[in-house]
Structures are given as C-alpha cells and as structure tokens.
C-alpha cells in the first residue's frame, strides 16, 4: 500500500490488519510482520525558513532531497544522519520519516544531541487511524506532553509518522579533525579528555587504530581550539581539514569499516569509560569494535551468533545492546530487554496508541 495523503493513511490503517510501515526500507530493524505500508507517497518540503532555522517536511520526503535543500542555504540537519545501507546490505531511498522513526543520529550526537533533540513537531496516524499532532515548528514549546520525543525512535510502533519539523543548523565555516595513532585504551582516554575540555568537540571516535577528534566553527576559532586541544592532550596529532576530515567522519557515521565484513553487528549504548572493558570481556569471541560518542556508542562486529554473551557483557556494566545486523537464522531479540517497570509502561503506551496491535507488530519485543 502506498498512500498519497495523510487522509489515505487513516483509511488504510482503519481498514488494515497487521502493517509493516516502511519509509525507504533502508534502516528499519526488528522483525515486524504484515502488509507493507510505504510512506514514499507523502513527500515534499512544506516549509523552510532559513532565518528561523526551521524546516517542515512530509514523512516520505527523501533524506537526500531534504539535505540538498538545506545545503542550498548552507544549512544541515545537525544530528548527522548515518547511511547504513552498505552496512545492512540494502538499497532504496532513505526517507526523513524513517530517520525520525529510528532516531538515527551520528557522531555529532555528543555535541548537539540526537534526532529527537532537533525534532520540533510531528503529525502521525495512530493505530486507530486518527491523525494526531504534537509539538510544532517553534524551538521552545512545553505545551502539553511531549509526544514528539515519544515518536522519535518508536520504530513505527506507535503510529505512522506523516510530517516532521526540525530545528536545523548552519554549516560551519570550517571543520578540522585531529587524528592520533594510538592504542585503543590510550585513544579512548584521549577522546574523554577532549570531551572534558572547553573546546566544543563535535565528534570523538576511535576506529581502525586511530583516535579522531573533530572541531567545527569559524576559521579563527577552530584554529585556536585545535592548538589548545593538542596541547591539552599531548602527543602527536595529525590534522585533517575540510573534505578529508568529512570523509573520515562519514566512515565512522556509516560504520563503513564493517560493511564488507561478515558477522553480526551490534550497537551498544554504554557509559563511555566502560566501553573498552566491555569489549575486552568479549575478546574470546574475536569481536571488533568502532567507538563513537567518546566511547558511549560501540559498534561491535561479532563473527558468530553469541547474542547471549553480548547482552550479558553489557548488562554487567549497564547500558543497552541492539542487534543492528543479524546473521542468517539468528533468533535473538533485536531490541534490548527492558526492566519490568519500563516494559510495562512501554506495553501500556503501545496498547493505547495501537489497541489492535497492528503497527509493526513483533518489533521491539
């Protein structure tokens, strides 16, 4: 099914049995079952005010189109949307609604927050087939409950998102990355030290044997911070500028190093200083890791199934493990298990927004 308007989404949801909601099919995870409802027919930018940093788009608008329109005004989505198509082995056109449903957020998360932090408003069709709007197009809004956050990262389980509005960001004048060839432990220590400094780091990752720390902003300011930060960190740091720097971060953002490697891929959300220890505790499984968000996000490549071991290792320290790319025949839950109280509230919300249990049923447990 491919509705061409929000009203059609309502009709289809009211009439439907189990539905799998699909934007571009480029980043959905989890094993939902049912008839496919595609949002690509709901497309177009409905409002863009560069001077107010606001953009409103229909959910099926291609991400690339959204980014191109912003780039025309030297603006961008601040949260740096990952392109996981190569990693997940998918084709297709990523949509802006899918980005929101997955709360897809890249390396700049440490500085500006996630997709949910840039999201100002949503319209969605709930499982009863009713249109609900929440939030709006202004940057400060505490009117009523914040269902905007609830919908961001809901993976289609609470409603079919039809329209989203964002706070966008001006592109920086320059970007620079300090690159250090360091052992894993020393590299991660450097990332945390950089994030503790006042130099407004916009990316802190360790991958493929290198620590990378990004600075963005006005030319003079970045130059100053680059030197000040290198002095604080000590040791030798190479400097990558402009397009070369952007390439480095694209690789981190898209988990490019694992795209052509066999194995399950997990996304761990942990306390940064626990990251290395968690990975080390899984050494016997021959795992490999890419660390982003100063260590707070670990992309873990695990050659065999071993889902139980990964979840135990994370639980021992605290945090979450999500299975982003499974192996054939793998049956482990994709989303992390939740403590009883949280699970009960989540189940309660799903039952309220989707009483018939038809929206991406089977996803998120």
């Amino acid at each position: 099914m491919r509705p061409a308007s929000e009203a059609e989404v309502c009709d289809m949801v009211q009439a439907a049995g189990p539905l799998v909601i699909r934007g571009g099919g480029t980043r959905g995870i989890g094993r939902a079952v049912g008839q496919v409802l595609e949002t690509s027919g709901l497309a177009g930018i409905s409002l863009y005010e560069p001077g107010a940093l606001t953009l409103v788009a229909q959910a099926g608008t291609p991400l690339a189109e959204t980014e191109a329109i912003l780039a025309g005004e030297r603006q961008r989505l601040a949260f740096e949307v990952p392109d996981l198509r190569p990693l997940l082995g998918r084709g297709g056109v990523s949509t802006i609604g899918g980005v929101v449903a997955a709360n897809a957020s890249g390396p700049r998360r440490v500085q500006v927050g996630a997709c949910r932090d840039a999201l100002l408003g949503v319209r969605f069709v709930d499982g009863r087939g009713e249109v609900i709007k929440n939030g709006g197009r202004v940057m400060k809004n505490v009117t009523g409950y914040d269902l905007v956050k609830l919908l961001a990262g809901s993976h289609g389980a609470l409603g079919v998102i039809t329209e989203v509005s964002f706070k966008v960001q001006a592109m920086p004048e320059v970007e620079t990355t300090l690159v250090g060839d360091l052992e894993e432990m020393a590299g991660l220590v450097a990332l945390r030290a950089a994030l503790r400094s006042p130099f407004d780091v916009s990316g802190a990752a360790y991958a493929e044997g290198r620590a990378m720390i990004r600075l963005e902003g006005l030319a003079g300011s970045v130059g100053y911070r680059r030197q000040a930060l290198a002095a604080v960190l000590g040791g030798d740091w190479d400097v990558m500028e402009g397009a070369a720097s952007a390439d480095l971060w694209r690789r981190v953002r898209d988990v490019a190093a694992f795209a052509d490697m066999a194995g399950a891929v997990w996304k761990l959300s942990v306390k940064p200083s626990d990251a290395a220890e968690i990975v080390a505790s899984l050494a016997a499984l021959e795992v490999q890791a890419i660390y982003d968000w100063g260590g707070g996000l670990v992309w873990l490549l695990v050659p065999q199934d071993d889902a139980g071991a990964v979840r135990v290792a994370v639980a021992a320290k605290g945090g979450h493990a999500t299975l982003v790319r499974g192996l054939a025949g793998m049956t482990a839950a994709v989303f992390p298990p939740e403590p009883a109280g949280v699970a009960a509230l989540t189940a309660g919300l799903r039952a309220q927004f989707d009483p018939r249990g038809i929206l991406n049923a089977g996803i998120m447990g």
Partner: protein
Amino acid sequence: MEMPLPDAAILSRKAEIVARLLGVLPTDAVIHDPAETRAYECDALTAYRCAPLAAVLPRSTDEVAAVLRICHEMRVPVVPRGSGTSLAGGALPTADCVILGVARMNAVLETDYDNRFIRVQSGRTNLSVTGAVEADGFFYAPDPSSQLACAIAGNIAMNSGGAHCLKYGVTTNNLLGVTLVQMDGTIVTVGGPWLDAGGIDLLGVICGSEGQLGVVTEATLRILPKPEGARPVLVGFNSNEVAGTCVSDIIKAGILPVAIEFMDRPCIRATEAFAHAGYPDCEALLIIEVEGSPAEIDEQLARIKAIALTHDPVEFREAADEDQARRIWLGRKSAFGAMGQINDYMCLDGTIPVSSLPYVLRRIGEMGAECGLDVGNVFHAGDGNMHPLILFDANKPGDLERCEAFGADILKLCVEVGGCLTGEHGVGIEKRDLMSVQFAPADLEAQFRVKDVFDPAWLLNPAKVFPLEATASRRAG
C-alpha cells in the same frame, strides 16, 4: 480560574489519612495543622491560593513510594512540589490533596567527570547542581532565572529553559535518566548515564509532564565543561522589524550566540527608571552574548557587528571589561523587578516563529491600547519565546480578569501565527483552558491516554494542564 470542588469524603477522612502517613514518615515530615499547611497554598502564580489537606516531606525514594501507595489506596489526589516557583500554578494544591514536597531530598549521589554526568536527588536546586561541579570546571546548562530557588524536580516537570538554551538546549536535552515513582508506588528507573535509553523514549515524555505521570525522585544530568569566557553586546534599533531581521541574519550567518535577548520600548523605559543601566531610549534593544576564548569572542562579535551595522542601529555597545558586561545585562536582569515596581504584572510565555515578531509586537500594542492595559515585552529572540509582561492593579476590582483575558488573547495570537501557548513555564492551571486553541480533541485525547498508562486513576496533579471538562470523566474514575 476554576478548580474542581474538593471531595467531601476525602476531607472528612483527614484524620485517618494523616495517621496513615504518620505510619510511614517521621512526625516532622507530615504537615497537617492548617496554620502550617498554609505555607503550601500557592506557587509563584500567587493570584490563586488554596491550602492542601496535608503536606509531606519525604527523604527517600522509598518514603515517596510509601506515601503514594497510601494515597493511591485511599484515592487521595497528590500534587508534587519542588520549590514552588512555578509561574503557571503547576504546584497549586486543591483542598483535598496531599502536597508531596521533595525539598528535603537534595543530595548529590554521584559525580562523574570522565563520563560527564551528575546524579542528584530531585529536590536539589538548579544552581546548586552547578555549584557541586563548578570548582572542577563544569556546569549544568539549563539556567532558568529562578535557578537560585527552583528544584531539578520542577525543572524536569516543566522542561524548563533558561537564558542560554539557544546554544545548550532546555532541560529535556540535558536529562539522561530519572527514577520515577508512579502513583501506585511502583518505582521505575528510566535512562541512565548513557545516551539514548533504547526502546520507546519514556524519558522524553516524562520530562515536561508537569507532575502528572509520576514523582521524580532522582535525576541523571549531563554536565558540560565551562567555556573559557563570555561577553555580551548591546544593539539598539528604532524598529522592531529591523531588530527582528538582524536576529535572523545573525542566525543565518551561522553564528551561534548563547543568548539573544530582546526588549521593547515600554520595557526599556521601565528598566531604565528602575535600574539605570544606561540603555538607549529606542524601540528595540538586543543583548547578544557569545562564548569562547577572548580571541574567539572577538571573532564572533566582529561578525555580529558587521551584520548589525548593515541595519543602521541607533547604538552598538561593546563591553570592554567585566563591569561594562555586567551593565549590559543589568537592565535585562532587572526587567521583571522593574515592571513589578510600576504595578502588579502577569508574565506570559508564548512562543512564535521569529519571522512573525514585528507583526505580533504590533498586535500586542494595539490590543493593549484597546483594553487599556500597558504591556512590555522581554523576549528570547533567538528561539521566539516571548515574555509579554502585562501590568494591572490587583486591588482594582476586575483588573485581574481584564488582564487574564488580554493574556489569553495574546496567547491565541501566538498560536494563530504558528507558535504555541507556552515555551518554558508550562500549562499548569494558567493555560489549561486554552489548550483547545492549540490542540484538536484527538491531539488532547492522545495525551490523556499517556496519563491513563502512567496514572490510570488520575490522582497525580489531576486538575492541571488539560481543560477540566475534557478530563472530568477520567478524574471521576
């Protein structure tokens, strides 16, 4: 503002309820003498007052859970309270409610600089969170003007903002996790010292839920390294429209000040008479603050100056030293006090798209003239959050009502131009009955359903946020 009639059955059981509460709390934590419950009769929306049945001051999450279990079992409404600085009546009691104050729960539980978070009990004041980490070069970013008094609990409930939220975001963007006690006493931990809790974003909906989904007892907050320095400039214009264009040009140019504050002529005149900050007598005044090292500040201010000068300002004032910087902020910081010198005032909090600024200011002026009330505007211009201050005389019969009607018209105007009723103060009782201006019935129903999940009996702060008639059937059940 109408409040539901107290439940006579609950009032008649006061002695029994108090006895049960004394069974789980020390004597000094249960306040029930009418002479003492008066202390909790209002928050900062002082026009409305009502002493509660009792107030409790627990010291731990377990004590909070014990109180809530009793109130749940006896069907007694509970109004959570932090420091009582809400401007929306969020912490206003009803005569049949128990006020649950978290003020005694103010400990720092954990500080972790390596992972940049602090975990506190929710009664801790906003400023003392920064106080706990300041010596080590950190701060907690959301900084409401009430930060000396207001508690993290209230900040989370209202999703409070502050002067620096243009750069650092509001409470929800700086909150990593909470311990929440539901009305039936269930304790849940949501989020933690990692980013993105995984699963449906419960934390996102708890923040800003005005004490209606649960009682927050602990919070994990993101802390940030302190910037090297900050410096403001003052720019005066003879037209609101030009000042508004200047703001959007600065934003478009990719400069990110930490604050852009706007004052209009009535407000400038009032603060001048009160604080003598030496502001120019012009139609619109901007205070723009940037952060960084001295060289970075110079670089940003040079750009801002270049942009401002293309708009022909009547004054562009830089701060050569700390004292001049303080004087630039002085008038803005005394704005509320200055208006208060003139008369009683009501402070509104709607948000508008910044592009509508000139139109909205003009309409507010016209509407004020029509109803014969003076109004001054202070404004977080970078994000469109307005604070019109309407002057009235509380001792003059009918003036409060006139002022409230005018306020409601201004908020309707905010919604009409694509904005919202409240940017940071919350709905409380103040904007409750205007909710249907901004939301269709289905939009409100969706929010009611969230409350149904967290608090099925609708006992937590039930008479707030939503129009009373819309929630009557739920509150009765």
